[in-house]
Structure formats: C-alpha cells, structure tokens
C-alpha cells in the first residue's frame, strides 16, 4: 500500500510527460524525442529564475512553461514544418527530434556545467503520517499541481477555439484542412502545450531529483513508455499510463529488486506491446489495416 502511494508523485510526472507525447503524436503524428529535454529545460529555467531573481515556485512554474512553450513553437516552425513540407520519411523526423534533444541537452551543459543543481522545494519534504501510511507535502504538491494542469488542459481542449481545432486535426487532419482549420497553427499549439507540460513536469520534479543536463533522457523515455502503455494519442490513456507506470515501478523497485526495476518496467512494456499493441486502456482495438 505504501509503495502504491510512493508511486503516485512520480506517476504524476510521467503522466504529464506522457500527455505531452500524446498531444503531439495525435495532432501531427510526430514522435517527438525532445520531450524529455523540454522537461530538463523547464527545470533549468525554473532554477535560473530562482537563482538570479529569487522568483518563487508558482511564478517560476508559469514563466518556465511560457518560455519552454515558446521553444516548442520554434521547434515546430523551424524543424518540423520543413520536414513535413518535404514529406520526409518518419525516421527522418525521429532523427530530427533526436537532434533537437542533443542540441538542447548540450546547450544546457555548456551553460550550467555538468554539476547537479539543487532546486529548493517550496514545501517541506518531511513525511507526515496518514493512518499507517505516510506522505510528504512535497509529493502532495506534485500530485495536485499535475492534476490541476491536466484539468486546465482538458478545459482548453474542450472550450477554446484553438483546443477544438486541435481535436479536429487529431481526429482527421485532412477533413480539418477542408473545414478551414489552420493545421500549421494547431501543430504549433500542440507543440507549445506539450513543451509547457514538459516544463511543468521539470519544475515539479526538480526538488526531488537534482537538476542535471541529462535528466531529460530518463524522464522522457519513461514518459514515452507511459504514453504507449496508455495508447499513444489517447489523452486519458496517457494520464492512466503515467500513474500506472509510476506505481508499477515503485512496486517492482520495492518488492522485487531496485537494480532490475527499470528492466522489469521495460519487460512489462514489451509484453503490453505484444499483447495489446494499441495500449492497455483502449477498449476498442483500432488496428489499421
């Protein structure tokens, strides 16, 4: 039971990152490997804001989301649009996003150096008892902020014009174009929202782990795993996948072996892929023929 609870905060982080993968994949069909590095950039920007201007947690979160969202738009317009115009094969798109990941990771390395930076937590990390269980205010902050962001995203997708356009593009890109939706714009919206979600995940995770230039690799990969477990492109699935992965990891690490924790996660993933290629939580199997 305690392991279950321990898995929730990291699950929330994975869910945010999984959402960011799914959002881009569902609208533009791009598998964006630089998502993890948006997490890293988010954490560094939050850290820099705090270090130089003593910007607090909430303001840091918002500014960082804004800045990284802007980077997402730049990536979409400068790199993915030309690729799409040339109808590049999907593997080229994957390599391009890997290139973005390599570039951003090493810019961060050049600016902040290889040392891990400490981002202080806005709340205490001392656990308090909850019956037989215990949880830290820090963990609660992560879980509730993540859920809040998911609700905001849901609201934006359902209620705003841009959100509706984005969902239309996700459903049928061609039909959306015919209906006069500016797909370039909605791609940019998807990239901005995804990058901003990643940045939020970065700031939330920063006080738990240290801020390092290669922190994005691990979190990005796990977020992607969560997105696939939930069914890539499926928004509620991504959230469920994130929490599922977090809890599974916590259980595997606590009950079986911490060294093999990630190996167990990946073995499970391959099993899921094998048995349910369209995700664990999708009822209808939509294998395209």
């Amino acid at each position, binding site marked *: 039971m305690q392991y279950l609870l321990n898995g929730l905060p990291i699950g929330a982080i994975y869910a945010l990152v999984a959402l960011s993968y799914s959002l881009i994949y569902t609208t533009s069909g791009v598998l964006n490997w630089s998502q993890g590095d948006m997490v890293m950039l988010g954490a560094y920007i939050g850290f820099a804001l705090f270090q130089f201007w003593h910007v607090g947690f909430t303001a840091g979160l918002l500014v960082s989301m804004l800045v990284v969202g802007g980077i997402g738009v730049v990536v979409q317009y400068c*790199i993915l649009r030309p690729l799409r115009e040339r109808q590049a094969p999907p*593997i080229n798109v994957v*390599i391009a996003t890997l290139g973005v990941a390599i570039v951003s990771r*090493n810019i961060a390395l050049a600016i902040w150096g290889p040392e891990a930076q400490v981002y202080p937590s806005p709340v205490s990390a001392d656990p308090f008892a909850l019956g037989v269980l215990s949880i830290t205010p820090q963990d609660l902050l992560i879980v509730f902020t993540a859920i809040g962001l998911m609700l905001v995203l849901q609201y934006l997708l359902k209620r705003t014009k841009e959100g509706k356009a984005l969902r239309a593009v996700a459903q049928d890109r061609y039909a959306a174009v015919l209906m006069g939706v500016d797909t370039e714009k909605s791609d940019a919206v998807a990239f901005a929202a995804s990058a901003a979600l990643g940045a939020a995940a970065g700031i939330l995770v920063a006080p738990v782990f240290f801020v390092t230039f290669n922190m994005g690799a691990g979190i990005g990969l796990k977020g992607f795993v969560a997105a696939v477990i939930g069914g890539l492109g499926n928004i509620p699935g991504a959230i469920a996948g994130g929490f599922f992965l977090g809890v599974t990891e916590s259980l595997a690490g606590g009950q079986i072996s911490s060294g093999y924790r990630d*190996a167990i996660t990946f073995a499970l*993933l*391959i099993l899921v892929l094998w048995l349910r290629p369209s995700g664990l939580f999708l009822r209808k199997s939509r294998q395209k023929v």
Partner: protein
Amino acid sequence: MGANNETNKRSMVIVAILAAVIPLAVSSNYYLHVINLAGIYTLITLGLNLLSGYTGQVSMGHAGFFAVGTYVSALLAISAGIPFWAAAVVALVVTGACGAIIAIPAMRLSGPYLVLATVGFGEIIRLIILNWTPVTKGAAGLTGIPLPNFLGMQISSERDFYYLIFVVVALGTYIAYRLANSKIGRTLAAIREDELAAETMGVPVNRYKVAAFVISAVYAGMAGALYGVFSGVASPDNFTFDDSVAFLCMSVIGGNRTIAGAIIGTFMLTGLSEILRALQAYRLVIYGGILIFTVIYMPQGLAGIMASGNKWLAKRLAELSLFGKGAGK
C-alpha cells in the same frame, strides 16, 4: 540497372584497394584507431540498413545486440579460454537468437510502438549487464579480454586490427550487398513499401521480418565480438541508448536504403564527432545541428546526394561528348 551494377562493382573494387593501403599512408595510431572503430560500427549500420532501410523496421536498440556480442564472446574467452573465432561464432548464434526473440513481439508492431519495443530491449540488456554482477562484473566491466589470433598470427597493433576488421567488414559488406540485391532484398523492400500488398502476393511477411531481425542482430553481434578484442575492455557504459541512437543516425545520415550509405554514414559521423572534439563543449550542439540539417535537406542521406551527383555528372559528361561530336563535324 545492369550498367549501374557494373559501376557499383567497379567502385567497390576501387574502395577496397584504397582501403587496403590506408594503414601504409596513415602513420598515426590515433587515426587508425578511429578508422578501426568506424569499421566496427559499420558492421552494425550494415545490419541496421538491412533491417530499417530495406525492411522498414526501425530499431533503436541495436546497442543491445552489440553488447550481447561483446559480452558473450569476451566472457567465453576470459573464463573458458576459448579462442576468438570460436567465441565469436557462439556470440553470433546468441545474438541471432536474441534477434529472433525480439522479432516475435516486433512482428506485430510498427512505427513508434516498434521503436519503443526495441528501445526496451536495448535497455533490458544494458540493465542485465549492469546488475548481473557475478557474471558480467556489473558497472566495473570486463577487463583483460585476450587478443585474437588470425591465421596463426597474433593480432595486437592498431595496424593488425585494421586488417582484421577490414576483412570482416569487406565480407559483411559483400554479404549485405548480395542479400540486398537478391530476391530476399526485393522482398524486404516490398514489405517496407506495403506490408499488406506483399502479404497478398504470397510473401510470408512474418518469416521475412524475423529473418531481417536475426540477420541484423548477427551483424551487430559480430561487431560486438570485434569490439571486445579490439578495446580489451567492456562496460555497460559502452552500450547505452545514446549509442543505439548514434547507430541509427549513422544509418539514416548515410542513406539507409543503400549498402554504401551504411559505410558512408558511419565514417562521416564517426569522423565528424572526432573532428568536432576541438570545439569541446559545443561539439554535440553542432553535431545535433548537423543531424537536423541533414535529415531536412538530404532526406535520402549522403548516399542519395552522391547518387544524384553522379547522375548529374553523367548527364553533363554526355552533353559534353555530344557537344564535342557536334563541333567535330
């Protein structure tokens, strides 16, 4: 097509002769070392091109096969004293089996799902090596992998290794070339272009997909066996996800639908990352930038650029000779 094959053969012979005299011209051990390393990586990219380029099955876990090849052959040599070639053969069998195992879930997957399954495979292998300390020595890695023998000669210097690797790469290239230009290669391309159509035409798609995975894994396994004896040490850090990505980049940047592309891409990117060392901190920033630039502006890779360059040249030459004839009249 026939003429094209002739020129291909001729250029292959030229490359082979050039390659044979390289160590005589290159005196620095450092350059030879880099060339040797690129040669080993070439084997991996050759396998990747057969799998990703020809069959359309993208793998981001080839460092896993590479690692299995290295560890199996190195452990046999260290703990049982088995000679290099015998150990290498066992390593090839084991990596081939790994390829078949990962091919089973991979058969049903495509696109991002397949990519993730291969990433998962690579990570599982690395984590097993990292954690199975009694056998693999964990993070400390293996040391003192014995030097190999070749036709009774002890291989020890960079130049010795150059010729050993050269022979293996030449053989690997030849086999890949023959495979790619055979019925098998065309079948694989048919699966890439339209799996359903291929299936309808009576191609046993799954069997070919498994075969492509096995062949590709065996190539990486051979590279691993060579890598072990070449570097003398092996640790889990040599076989990370980043390495898998680097192999895939070499394959795509070179042009993954040709055999020559594997060689070009591997040598270009290995060389590039050595040249950029002078820039220190910004090395990988520029490396990443070049990757992005290449996939946008050279979608067929460097081999594609060269092919269109050749066509352009041939056309100009033809025009010139026509013009010459006209002037002679």
